[in-house]
């Protein structure tokens, strides 16, 4: 069984992901438990889930500046960012701050 990850999108981020605010995905076996990181997840999301405008989601190998990421309700900057090792049942939240206030 592959890793199960809960994804959430808000702040306008959901517009890039079929307007879905939440999605639970099971990752393919190429994601090795205890090895696969967020750095592997982002391009997979881009290639498999993103419905439009990849440049608004990623820049280089990371998220576009201005997108906040939370891992299990904590700022990803405290969790190693791209190096964070995915665990089964993790919840990862993407919030765009680029939309009007």
């Amino acid at each position, binding site marked *: 069984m592959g890793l199960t990850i809960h994804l959430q999108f808000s702040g306008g981020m959901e517009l890039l992901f079929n307007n879905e605010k939440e999605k639970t995905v099971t990752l393919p076996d190429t994601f090795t438990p205890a090895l696969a990181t967020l750095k592997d997840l982002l391009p997979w999301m881009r290639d498999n889930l993103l419905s439009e405008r990849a440049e608004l989601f990623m820049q280089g190998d990371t998220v576009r500046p201005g997108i*906040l990421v939370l891992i299990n309700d904590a700022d990803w900057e405290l969790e190693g960012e791209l190096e964070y090792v995915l665990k089964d049942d993790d919840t990862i939240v993407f919030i765009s*701050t680029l939309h009007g*206030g």
Partner: protein
Amino acid sequence: MRLCTLCQKERAVLKRPKTGQQICRNCFYAVFETEVHNTIQENELFKRGDKVAIAASGGKDSTVLAHVMTTLNERYGYGLDLFLLSVDEGITGYRDDSLETVKRNEQQYKIPLKIVSYEELYGWSMDAIVKEIGMKNNCTFCGVFRRQALDRGAALLQVDHIVTGHNADDIAETVLMNILRGDFSRLQRCTAIRTATNETIPRSKPFKYTYEKEIVMYAYFKKLDYFSTECIYSPNAYRGYARAFLKDLESIRPSAIMDIIHSGEAWESKIEVKVNTPVDGRVIVGSCERCGYMSSNKLCKACVLLEGLNKGLPKLAIGNSTKYKREQDKRDASARARVCDPATPSGRSPS
């Protein structure tokens, strides 16, 4: 698990962009609210008994501002009479939806809401303006009209003060834009936490030192209800580029935002700008001879823009308008030629 550097007890959930501190949820609420409180106190933004309108768009900043103003007013006993003030630009599929959020805020925070619309104030909705002028430059109209609309709404509510949700990122963006455009007059004014003229209701920005990241995190942790669809007419806006640039800088060095605000403040006194020079801390300006709104010219910017729209020359007042002025002069000349009696008005007040 990383522990909060402040309380040393709870799990840290946020790295503060301003300080790099790692803090837990409750310590975050405390420092976030206290910093806004300190900003309000140090700058003496309000007096006890003031009637204060919170400019509310339904977006993240104004939603968090309404929440924090309500919280601080209760906690510290400011004695403020709070109102929500919203502008309906008339943008179908954008503002109509976000106004629903503001209406929910009215219920949640028990603050009375007033909505003023471009349609009723100017006779033109943004949808109608865009039909006339197209997707480019329409933000010029919207910005000028919104500024006046807030003042007019505030006058209707008879408030003493308007607060807006502009945050540190917004102000840094504006500093960059004013530098890029060589607009030194605005560069001087844009970092002020409070605008004071003798003609209009004072405005202030309690979030001047608050990072957007923290506003969004605050809204997320508190589960505040906000609206986050981009304005459907804004994809061409110049601001978007300044914003992307600023976010790139922030990702390399988070202090860039505060640094740019400080740069803007430091430039303030270095460049002489002749118009609107403050006298005894107040800016003395004239008023528009058509609508009475404050203006350093004969007609205020909104009346110039409206005149263009109503005459079918909507580009009259934006950008390099020499060509359009010439066109307008030609039209006026032919109108005068048709109307022989000089006493008959031709739709334009004599100059």
